[in-house]
């Protein structure tokens, strides 16, 4: 939960973008611009890409091999992320052409890779590797990340560093031969129990102010000293993990970006998380409001006048939020991204909380029950609607205003970046990290 929380929180540190230079750099650099040579062949337009997809499918019939094998061939053909450089699974083409490839592959009968197996690697790991990894890291890491053979997770948040990610305490110290020895505790880590690699943010200089003493690493999760424990939530499920790092050795070659530039590098990761939050317009009555509306329609005996008013209010809010998201999507499509994403995230959390509570109240007696408290692992995210008892969704929704940036932090983002309101006095950005009260 805080894993993604940490991510966005950081991105959103009210003052970080201003007072602390590094904060804004990756935003400007935007990480993933093509930097490889243009591929041989014709101009990289849609027709050329369709031709390459046709060549790929002709050479490697997806129906005769495993998904992993085909994805490997796709990577080698530069058709994984077309805007990545050649050799990194891309062609240095325009990002807008990616959809052409996806469509052509579907038309050719090739299954499109699901983000489910390796969502963090695909969404955040890959852009960071391309932007900040050295040639060796790119060559080693990107292909198995893409095929899903190597799952990634993110080691940012800590018990003492949630909204204030830059205050993290995990310590990386150089040893005699230039490697790094890492010790600390990370938390809210999705998929850590399946991950081969992690994006790790650690403190390399506690004498500097908190944003300046951080360094970013790619961590091999099979290294000695890495221990992953499930973290059980109020729902009974364990969606996340705690990760304990005890004298874990990380080669300096696995450092991403310069020493002390970890905050800037992490912003590449975070920015890409934020982009991933978008997507197509959901249909009306998607999410929990649909479940409540169906229950209202199907079970007239549960209806009361007071709940009717609440249902209608909730329906209005949900539908307006849906239109708001669609408007954001339309703005992005014409290249005019607004800051409404943070507002949408706040609204989603609040609405999902209100609606799942309404659901439980409408459910009445059955709402007193639950399906299962036994701790079970969940790979990522909340259960699909209908899979569990209403109580589960009520409890799970409580996390929505915490994970991926607390609603409080997001309000600060809007106040700072949109409304340009004066900042709160801050006491934590100029002092050495080790002097900071905690």
């Amino acid at each position, binding site marked *: 939960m805080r894993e993604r929380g940490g991510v966005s929180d950081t991105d959103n540190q009210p003052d970080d973008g201003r007072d602390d230079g590094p904060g804004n750099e990756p935003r400007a650099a935007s990480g993933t611009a093509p930097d490889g040579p243009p591929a041989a062949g014709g101009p990289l337009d849609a027709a050329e890409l369709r031709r390459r997809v046709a060549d790929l499918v002709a050479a490697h019939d997806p129906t005769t091999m495993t998904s992993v094998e085909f994805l490997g061939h796709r990577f080698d053909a530069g058709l994984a992320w077309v805007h990545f450089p050649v050799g990194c699974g891309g062609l240095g083409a325009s990002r807008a052409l990616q959809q052409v490839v996806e469509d052509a592959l579907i038309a050719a009968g090739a299954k499109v890779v699901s983000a489910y197996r390796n969502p963090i690697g695909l969404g955040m790991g890959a852009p960071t590797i391309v932007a900040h990894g050295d040639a060796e890291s790119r060559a080693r890491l990107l292909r198995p990340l893409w095929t899903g053979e190597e799952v990634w997770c993110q080691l940012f948040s800590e018990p003492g560093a949630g909204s204030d990610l830059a205050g993290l305490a995990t310590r990386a110290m150089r040893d005699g031969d230039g490697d790094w020895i890492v010790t600390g505790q990370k938390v809210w880590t999705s998929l850590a129990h399946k991950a081969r690699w992690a994006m790790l943010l650690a403190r390399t200089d506690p004498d500097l102010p908190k944003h300046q003493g951080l360094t970013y690493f790619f961590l091999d999760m099979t290294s000695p000293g890495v221990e992953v424990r499930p973290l059980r939530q109020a729902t009974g499920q364990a969606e996340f993990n705690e990760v304990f790092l005890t004298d874990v050795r990380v080669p300096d070659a696995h450092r991403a970006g310069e020493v002390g530039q970890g905050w800037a590098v992490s912003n590449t990761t975070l920015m890409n998380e934020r982009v991933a939050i978008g997507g197509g317009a959901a249909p009306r009555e998607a999410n929990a409001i649909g479940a409540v509306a169906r229950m209202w329609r199907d079970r007239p005996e549960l209806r009361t006048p007071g709940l009717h008013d609440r249902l209608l*209010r909730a329906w209005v809010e949900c539908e307006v939020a849906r239109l708001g998201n669609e408007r954001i999507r*339309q703005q992005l499509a014409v290249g005019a991204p607004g800051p409404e994403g943070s507002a949408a995230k706040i609204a989603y959390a609040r609405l999902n909380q209100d609606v799942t509570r309404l659901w439980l109240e409408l459910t009445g007696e059955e709402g007193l029950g639950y399906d299962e408290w036994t701790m079970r692992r969940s790979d990522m995210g909340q259960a699909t609607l209908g899979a569990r008892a209403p109580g589960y969704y009520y409890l799970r929704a409580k996390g929505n205003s915490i994970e991926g940036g607390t609603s409080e932090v997001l309000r*600060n983002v809007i106040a700072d970046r949109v409304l340009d309101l004066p900042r709160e006095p801050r006491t934590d950005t100029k002092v050495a990290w080790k002097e900071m009260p905690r």
Partner: protein
Amino acid sequence: MSEPTIPSLLYGEIEEELRATLRELLRDRCGWHDVLARIDTDEAYDEGLWKAVAAELGLAGLLIPEEFGGAGAGPREVAVALEELGRAVAPVPFLASAVLATSALLACPAGAARDTALRALAEGTRTATLAVTATTWPEAGFPLSVTGAWEDGELSLTGAVTGVLAVDRAELLVLPVIVAGEPHLALVAGDAANLARGAVTSLDATRPVGQVTLDQVRARVLAGPEHAERALGHAVRYGAALLASEQLGVAEQALAEAVGYLKVRHQFGRPIGSFQALRHRAADLWSDLASARAAARYAAACLAEDSPDAAVATALAQAYCSEVAVRTAEECVQMHGGIGFTWEHPAHLYLKRAMASALLLGTADRHRATLGALVDLPPAI
């Protein structure tokens, strides 16, 4: 439930041009000091401004087809005009004349009376109103308070309507009447014999309501039983859908005023906008506005393409935007502290416009009930 593809919720180039032109005019001629000063006079409307808006910019004819001298534009453009007029709390009878009366006329069958009226409205030489109680809502029944009788081949009307927008100002009244038990729409001249009218002191003094009393007043028929009910419902729905954009404009201005004050007002040695509780509330208001904009745009877009979802979109926009406008205007007062509660500050102008608008053309509550019926969420028995 019908669920068409969502049309564009953005502002097109022409809409942005219209906005820029109108905003400039309003900045020059309709500052809040002007609006405030007018309240203490007997002239509710700024006639010069109305002439500029209606005739010179041609906004009175936005909805009117070019064949009648109008701009042949549509509800999306009207919505943008309303956003700006709302922002300025402009004392002009735009909603009554260019939206309500005009859309009612357009929904009536062609005919000499209607066509002449449309031409006059498009020119900006006449102002009209829809003579219904302004709190009516799209699904309300046809009004029964004025009846008509045929006398010597002429329609003669008797009755009264209260709570009518711009009734004292309008040269033309589009009036729902019952003739021989059947609904009709009639056209009456504001200065007709035996017609009495006047404004009442109103909560929103920039848009007062008034009453009209008719005692055997001569009228012309605009629509008979086959069209009248539909035309009236159409006009009220049009008005409700577009009023959401005006509410959006009011809310935007109220938030802009509040945020501006939060930046400059110092207490405890700090700008008050640096206090987190106020920062968060302002952020929430901004988020609400983003949603309101989407809802208002969707309603206008659905009208523009005559979408089957127009009724849902209208009810949705009203249910949401009217509450956002009131909440934002209330917070604008609160964030200003004492000064926001004085007469000499514009906050009360936004508050009164927002609150009065929330009562117009169906409260949020009415529109939620409408939605319940439209999207199959029936009441408890």
